[in-house]
């Protein structure tokens, strides 16, 4: 018998020689006994067998690392009582056609009905009302439900025209939320009735001044009515989720957490970013997909929320990314990530007005597994986050938790959920592979 190949060696190691023999797939019509006899007699094949055994065992270890440690078996009765899959196939074609026709009709109706749509040529810029104005007029703000959930900012363009402010847009998020709580935001279903019954509020010079003359008002940024904020993206599933190291009684965990925070100087700088972002002073833009890929090495999203919108602000020495997602339950999540980046000297312009602030990347602690690995030209990855501060409640009622990964990467998660749910959202952070819709 000639030497046996690797496949047969593995079949031997797997105890499957008989299966091969039964299938008549051993060479030269050999039997399992023939193969065993050859292995006993041939030193070369025995040597190869040991090498393959080592490979097989090493592969088993790797597979073991990717294996669940313990699996509880639920009672079989749970399976028997599980609803049987229904056979919708015969109806699915008809349903699809009806759905497509309905969607087309609905879409065309919406297109015509939108006062700020391209079709009507009234694509207006807008100024947004202050909360005071809402309270004084008592008129409802009509916001499509998808926008009322925080993803977009949209206001009836007919009643609101004037100065454009990105800060106004940001305030509108809070305005909408406040209005929703006050019962002033209406869902689309009640939109038509509201339009006919509610008189449009007056636009007074005073109310406009209240918007445009705010002391900390950011520079005007064009904002179009009904235009969604950020680049729409779809996030591929299956990205590797970094671990989250939360606060714990474990001294080792606490020490590791502290090392990471110390290395990057805590949250002070990120707090400044959050403050600027809340005030609308972070110059977010909506780059195209190529721009995103060129300038951003990683974007973090919540898994299970496959769609989102993204805005990016690139400033000297730092990149801020804001992602808005809506979970399948309708809960809006906002992720603000901030990354210190190396500054190229050629990119700096010294104005002489103010000393430039320099950002120095701290070296990750040795033996610290809470670290970011990176190398030039390669994809960066975060192996773990630490929760770097307590959950806090924002002015708009949402909760926020700040996470940190060394070196120099911070992320805030905000959502109108409980503290415990926010922690779980943190555990669902994942690095997104992006495809633009």
């Amino acid at each position: 018998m000639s030497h046996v190949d690797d496949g047969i060696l593995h079949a031997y190691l797997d105890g499957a020689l008989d299966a091969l023999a039964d299938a008549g797939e051993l060479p030269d019509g050999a039997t399992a006994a023939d193969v065993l006899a050859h292995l006993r007699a041939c030193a070369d094949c025995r040597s190869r067998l040991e090498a393959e055994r080592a490979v097989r065992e090493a592969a088993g270890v790797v597979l073991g690392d990717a294996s669940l440690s313990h699996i509880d078996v639920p009672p079989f009765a749970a399976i028997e009582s599980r609803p049987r899959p229904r056979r919708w196939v015969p109806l699915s074609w008809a349903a699809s056609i009806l759905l497509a026709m309905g969607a087309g009709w609905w879409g065309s109706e919406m297109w015509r009905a939108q006062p700020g749509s391209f079709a009507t040529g009234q694509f207006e810029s807008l100024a947004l009302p202050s909360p005071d104005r809402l309270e004084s007029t008592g008129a409802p703000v009509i916001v499509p439900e998808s926008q009322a959930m925080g993803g977009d900012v949209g206001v009836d363009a007919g009643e609101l025209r004037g100065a454009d402010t990105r800060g106004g847009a940001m305030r509108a998020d809070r305005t909408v939320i406040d209005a929703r709580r006050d019962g002033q935001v209406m869902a689309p279903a009640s939109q038509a009735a509201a339009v006919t019954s509610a008189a449009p509020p007056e636009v007074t010079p005073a109310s406009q001044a209240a918007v445009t003359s705010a002391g900390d008002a950011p520079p005007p940024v064009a904002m179009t009515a009904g235009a969604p904020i950020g680049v729409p993206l779809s996030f591929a599933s299956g990205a590797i989720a970094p671990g989250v190291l939360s606060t714990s009684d474990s001294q080792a965990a606490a020490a590791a957490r502290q090392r990471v925070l110390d290395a990057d100087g805590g949250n002070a700088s990120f707090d400044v970013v959050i403050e600027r972002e809340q005030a609308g002073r972070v110059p977010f833009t909506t780059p195209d997909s190529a721009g995103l890929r060129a300038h951003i090495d990683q974007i973090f999203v919540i898994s299970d929320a496959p769609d989102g919108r993204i805005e990016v602000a690139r400033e000297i020495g730092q990149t801020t990314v804001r992602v808005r997602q809506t979970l399948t339950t309708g809960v809006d999540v906002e992720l603000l990530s901030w990354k210190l980046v190396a500054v190229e000297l050629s990119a700096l312009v010294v104005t002489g007005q103010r000393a430039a602030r320099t950002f120095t990347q701290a070296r990750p602690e040795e033996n610290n597994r809470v670290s970011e690995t990176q190398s030039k030209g390669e994809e960066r990855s975060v192996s773990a986050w630490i929760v770097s501060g307590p959950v806090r409640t924002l002015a708009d009622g949402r909760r926020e938790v700040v996470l940190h990964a060394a070196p120099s990467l911070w992320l805030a998660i905000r959502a109108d959920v409980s503290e415990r749910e926010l922690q779980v959202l943190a555990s669902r952070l994942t690095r997104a592979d992006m495809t633009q819709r």
Partner: protein
Amino acid sequence: MTNWTEVYNGTYPDLVRYLHRKVWDEDQARDMAQEAFARALASSATNGAPDNPRALVFRIAANLAHDEARLVTRRRRHLTLLAAEMDETRAPDPLETLERESREAAARAALGQLSDRDRETLLLWDAGLSYTEIAGQTGLSVGAVGTTLSRARRRLVEAHAGLEARHVARG
């Protein structure tokens, strides 16, 4: 007559492990495993007892995983899982958890570097299917299963070693 309870108790953990490595979500893997058994039961009631119920369940599970991979959105609702996942009575050491997750990520990345056929064959073998069952499910000949496993194992080990080396080099 198939004793489904016996098949279920003997197969469920292997099936969950297999599905977990396909979808990398423990809850989803459990859910899909149960769905696979439910469908196998329904099929059995309609078409009669299968020759190899274990193979049938794995075939259904593989199809479910394949379908799932094509879905853009997850079927499971997110927040409903949250309460169940927040088990305060179980507080694993974060560093231990991190270590385990790091190993899993490396293994997962190494598996991701295999071809679909190599990975599927390897996962089916590790889930306990015989060469004959794997051949039936993958369309390979029984003899090619050994060859495929040999190649898949070697590539897995090499990919894993490569990742480890890169990790060490980065420090």
